[in-house]
């Protein structure tokens, strides 16, 4: 994760290999970064171009990525953003909302500030244009296949609209809008992201249908009850669902009951945590020799980062398995399910497990 360099054009790579003779033990990038941080391909970086408010508690960040970035993501994928907060880098995942195209030099994400959240509030309200952030390559399998399926259904709540927005924008831009239904639920019109743009899309594309549900007025969406009414032919559609845990679970049930599980795609933004703040224990990191005391609601990933260890990670939500490490000894609890795992060189996801007593991780 640390030493592998992003791919560069072959000519540039040769030049850099030659320059490395002069800069060893550093890389030429380390010197270039002194002039312009974006010239270093050692770590992916981006400069904040603008932060434009969308609603009262959300904003769209336009980011100009530096050397090594390729505008090759699939619409619907997310990136990791690492921003320094009080001197420490904090990482979170955000769906790209920009259209993947080679004819641009920026990307966008749209962030909703979570109450008591660690980083999202800082991204929405605390980032000056010009700030340099770290980026992790686009990832995720919640994306629109090419060519787009003839009939699509999107069900989203709140900021879960973001990956779908990237998909809709891409189909709009490429003139490939197929038969699309979007069912989107938010508390009220003021809290709705991209409202004007979605109306525009609806007005321009006869094949795009939009159902807005304002839960303060209309109540929450119940897929079991409302789906048939909102989209009678849902069984014939490829479906993408992104939103709260309960929505995703319900969708899983409904599609499974109808024997349609393969046509359902889900994206999770946050996991409800079952952790117990009083339990926990000491986590020892055997290779680096550090140990930290944590409560039972702090993930092993967070505990390691707090100790200053460069922990591997991707989505930080239990999806991608980038964070998997051997649990040599002790016991950990999965914060999503409450299931416990025992040590003995078992591989566990550090981003969704917390210690249940003392444990040892091999890193």
């Amino acid at each position, binding site marked *: *994760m*640390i*030493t592998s360099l992003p791919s560069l054009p072959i000519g540039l790579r040769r030049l850099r290999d030659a320059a490395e*003779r*002069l*800069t*060893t*033990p*550093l890389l030429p990038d*380390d*010197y270039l970064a*002194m002039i312009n941080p974006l010239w270093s391909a*050692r*770590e992916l970086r981006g400069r904040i171009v603008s932060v434009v408010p969308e609603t009262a508690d959300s904003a769209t960040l336009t980011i100009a990525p530096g050397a090594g970035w390729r505008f090759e993501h699939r619409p619907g994928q997310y990136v990791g953003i*690492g921003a*320094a907060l*009080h*001197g*420490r*880098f*904090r990482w979170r995942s955000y769906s790209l909302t920009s259209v993947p195209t080679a004819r641009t030099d920026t990307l966008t994400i749209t962030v909703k500030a979570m109450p008591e959240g660690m980083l999202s509030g800082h991204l929405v309200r605390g980032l000056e244009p010009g700030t340099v952030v770290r980026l992790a390559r686009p990832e995720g399998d919640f994306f629109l296949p090419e060519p787009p399926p003839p009939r699509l259904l999107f069900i989203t709540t709140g900021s879960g609209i973001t990956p779908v927005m990237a998909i809709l924008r891409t189909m709009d831009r490429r003139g490939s809008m197929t038969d699309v239904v979007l069912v989107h639920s938010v508390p009220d019109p003021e809290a709705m992201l991209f409202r004007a743009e979605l109306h525009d899309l609806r007005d321009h594309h006869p094949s795009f249908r939009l159902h807005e549900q304002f839960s303060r007025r209309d109540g929450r969406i119940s897929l079991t009850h409302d789906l048939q009414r909102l989209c009678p032919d849902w069984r014939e559609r490829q479906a993408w669902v992104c939103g709260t845990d309960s929505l995703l679970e319900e969708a899983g049930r409904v599609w499974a009951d109808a024997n349609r599980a393969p046509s359902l795609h889900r994206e999770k933004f946050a996991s409800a945590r079952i952790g117990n703040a009083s339990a926990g224990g000491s986590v020892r990191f055997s290779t*680096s020799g550090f140990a930290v005391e944590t409560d039972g609601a702090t993930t092993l990933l967070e505990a390691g*980062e707090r*100790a*200053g*260890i*460069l922990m591997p990670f991707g989505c930080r939500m239990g999806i991608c398995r980038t964070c998997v490490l051997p649990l040599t000894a002790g016991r950990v609890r999965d914060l999503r399910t409450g299931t416990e795992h025992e040590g003995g060189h078992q591989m566990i996801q550090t981003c969704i497990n917390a210690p249940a007593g003392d444990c040892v991780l091999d890193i």
Partner: protein
Amino acid sequence: MPNSRTVSQPAITQAVVTARSSTLRTTAGLSEFEVSRLAAELDAIRAEVMGDLGAADADYIRRVIAVQRGLEFGGRALLMVSLFPPAWLAGTGALAVAKILENMEIGHNVLHGQWDWMGDPEIHSTTWEWDAVSPAAGWKRSHNVVHHTYTNILGKDRDLGYSAIRVDPAQPWKPIHLFQPLYNLGLSLGFEYGIAIYDLELDKVAAGDKPWSQARAEIGGLWQKIRRQWIKDYVAFPLLSGPAAPTTLVANVVANVARNVWGHTVIFCGHFPAGAQTFTEDQLVDESPGGWYIRQVLGSANLDGPPLLHLMTGNLSHQIEHHLFPDMPSNRYAEIAPKVREVCARYGLPYTSGSLPRQYAGVLLTIARLALPGGGRRVAGGENAGWM
């Protein structure tokens, strides 16, 4: 954590002497209770700083790195025209200072993990490699683990005299020591090679404590690194200078040697001057956290001087603070030094400190004196060395 400033402490001198002689040695005459209270006070000093780390600290190390890279770039650029003597002088000076900063305030401290808390993969103990011939990995093991754990324990701390030099009368004298003033000079000039060879722990291989296969792999890694360093300093940059190749080559040799001599000086002043004490292995038996702290204080010596001296020594001028809290960012040592000194004074622990010329003269005298057998009575853990 108890707050050191709200708890009123009676002045304690070396009054309370417990009966067990081993306790007497490790605890500098303090009772077990006092030792644990001392540990709590030092823990509190550490916790206060570590809880306060933030953007200003992160800015500090990034600024030092930027200055260092700027100096190195500027120095190397000047050397391109080093046929012009003032350019040679300025270029060599800038390069030497850059190399010193790189090794001391940046490399040594980053490799200690002092900046790991930032979560920045580019300034992290696991990814950093320094501008010296010894690969960072071997150094981290022999320095961070062995030396910082077994500070100044004869027979355990291999830094004590770097295995070859007799710095303490308790080390048995051998005829080879007659030449130690000479080979200490050699070690000073080629310090980075000395460290590299030392990190291979060949003495352990000879004793059968370390597999030869591992040593061979490490020698391979060392050779790779030496080659890269040589190509950079002694081939590539001189060639780039065209007609100024010879003067650039000489400048690079001078810069590396200056860095070596400086590093050697600072490091020898950290542990071997008069006042810094050594210990025997039985100090380790049942050593409490407080006992460990005491050993760090007694075994280390600070250098007094202006902020520039602290920067150029990588803050090893605050050797005592560094040994108490090796993973605390070095920019914070100056601010805690008065507190540590005050705590030491209250518990009657000698806090050794002096100017660089004075301390270094003492070190050289010791090396000269101990080249001969005997050397006075320097009892492990005793009062200030009686042999100077």
